[in-house]
């Protein structure tokens, strides 16, 4: 019974992390970059949004600016990687570290920016989980529609091919470096947007928010795609699956808390989920691979 009472909260929180996972999906699945910037940019989104709202900036404008701040972080990572030749994973780590200082500076040196005590009009809050679910769901739907439209434009198609086959992309006249920067900007913009929603939902932004966010995002992607790819492997279904993955993750998370697991072990749990999803296909391929029958020589008749 307690579990069912906790369910709306788990779903609402899961949706917000599902939105973040969409951002991670763009870098990890489409661009083929494991972008660690997200641990910083999700926090940046929360800090920017919280500080702006508490200074009286309208909530919708604050959220848009949070998105732009995240996009800027993505651009920094992209430039470190493409213009300065730093490996992408290190570029992400470096930006993440920079963002820790930046985020502290944004919050005026304090580690928490809280909405508590003020009468701010927020988009969503954990005090009303049902409406929080609707707001988060609406924003996710809008984001998926925008991304779906974008990835079927000429520019969007080149972004897909950049991650899928950079050699082919360059041969077809695509500026692979520019595309990586654009992709990372969109990715981190969405992550920061999720951060802005998360801060409102919780009622505060904390400098330590977002630690391990990339792992949660990856867990949501793996859980979601393991289901959605079986249904229909297309872009929109994949994104919906990723959001669903975020929700499932948070339901499991809440369930485990209810079982009485010490909350300090939860990051271990997140990491283990990701390890399992990455390791299972590898182990299957490496240790349990059935030998294929010897192919007939002479090539396919239709080749």
């Amino acid at each position, binding site marked *: 019974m307690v579990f069912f009472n906790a369910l709306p909260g788990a779903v609402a929180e899961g949706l917000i992390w599902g939105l973040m996972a969409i951002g991670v999906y763009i870098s990890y699945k489409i661009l083929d970059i494991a972008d660690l910037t997200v641990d910083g940019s999700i926090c940046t989104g929360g800090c920017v949004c919280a500080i702006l709202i508490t200074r009286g900036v309208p909530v919708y404008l604050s959220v848009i600016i949070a998105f732009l701040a995240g996009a800027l972080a993505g651009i920094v990572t992209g430039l470190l990687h493409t213009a300065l030749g730093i490996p992408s994973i290190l570029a992400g780590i470096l930006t993440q570290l920079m963002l820790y200082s930046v985020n502290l500076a944004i919050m005026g040196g304090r580690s928490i920016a809280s909405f508590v005590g003020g009468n701010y009009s927020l988009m969503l809050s954990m005090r009303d989980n049902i409406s929080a679910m609707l707001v988060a769901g609406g924003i996710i739907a809008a984001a998926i529609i925008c991304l779906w439209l974008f990835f079927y*434009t000429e520019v969007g198609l080149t972004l*897909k091919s950049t991650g899928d086959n950079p050699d082919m992309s360059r*041969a077809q*006249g695509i500026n692979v470096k520019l595309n990586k920067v654009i992709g990372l900007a969109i990715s981190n913009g969405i992550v920061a947007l999720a951060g802005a929603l998360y801060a409102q939902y919780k009622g505060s932004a904390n400098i330590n928010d977002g630690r391990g966010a990339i792992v949660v995002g990856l867990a949501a992607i793996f859980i979601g795609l393991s289901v959605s790819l079986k249904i229909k492997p297309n872009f929109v279904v994949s994104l919906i699956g990723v959001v669903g993955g975020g929700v499932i993750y948070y339901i499991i998370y809440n369930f485990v808390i209810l079982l009485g697991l010490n909350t300090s072990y939860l990051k271990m749990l997140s990491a283990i989920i990701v390890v399992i999803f990455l390791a299972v296909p590898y182990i299957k391929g490496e240790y349990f691979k059935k030998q294929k029958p010897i192919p007939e*020589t002479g*090539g*396919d008749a*239709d080749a």
Partner: protein
Amino acid sequence: MLKITGLQKTFNPGTINAKTALRGLDLTLNDGDFVTVIGGNGAGKSTLLNAIAGVWKPDYGKIEIDGVDVTKMPEHKRARFLGRVFQDPMKGTAPDMEIAENLCIAARRGVGRRLRWGFRPNERQQYRELLSTLELGLESRLSAKVGLLSGGQRQAITLLMATLRRPKLLLLDEHTAALDPKTAAKVLEITDKLVSENNLTTLMITHNMHDAIAYGNRLIMMHEGKILIDVSGEEKKNLTIPDLLGLFEKASGSEFANDKVILSK
């Protein structure tokens, strides 16, 4: 059309692994030339094609395509002049994208992409017709992921992509070497058809002496980063494999060494 002067390239300069791949190579192609390129192991054939494509910048020398100096132009910018097919059939197409999407990207090479809908209304129909000319049954699989296709099918699609917008110069880097003989013959047949129909200026590396003689109007043989033999016209038409090996031995003073060539003689 293509004018290369004094092209030099050394990989890993100043180290024990230093390898001079091109030693002051000069080459001029005329409009409509279909040139086959052969040469021994490490003769610099692929290095030459990569230099033209802009994969890296040469140490010395100049490359002009259609009067434009492209020596310092980045790879993606000079792509507007070039159609390229790689040796590895996996390299020329995006596996996780549909056949139609791959073609759609290729149709916009050198045109500049904008934030407008990826496909024009009748574009898919055009691709269907184009694919049917390959006679591989791909016209009914427009929305299939390219990764599901065989190497030969992917290479045929890469050829279409390379020629969809008429390139100033078509670069084929042993594009049939990774295919089985039957498929290789089919891809070569498609190549010849596309080149002659569009009157494309073409550089085709091959390890098969027979193909090198059978196709194209001009044949060059490379050796140690330079062009050793350059035959065209009637002389090329009447060339035989023993002639070619004789020419090589006379010009280089050594025996022709390319394991792949010797095996396929």
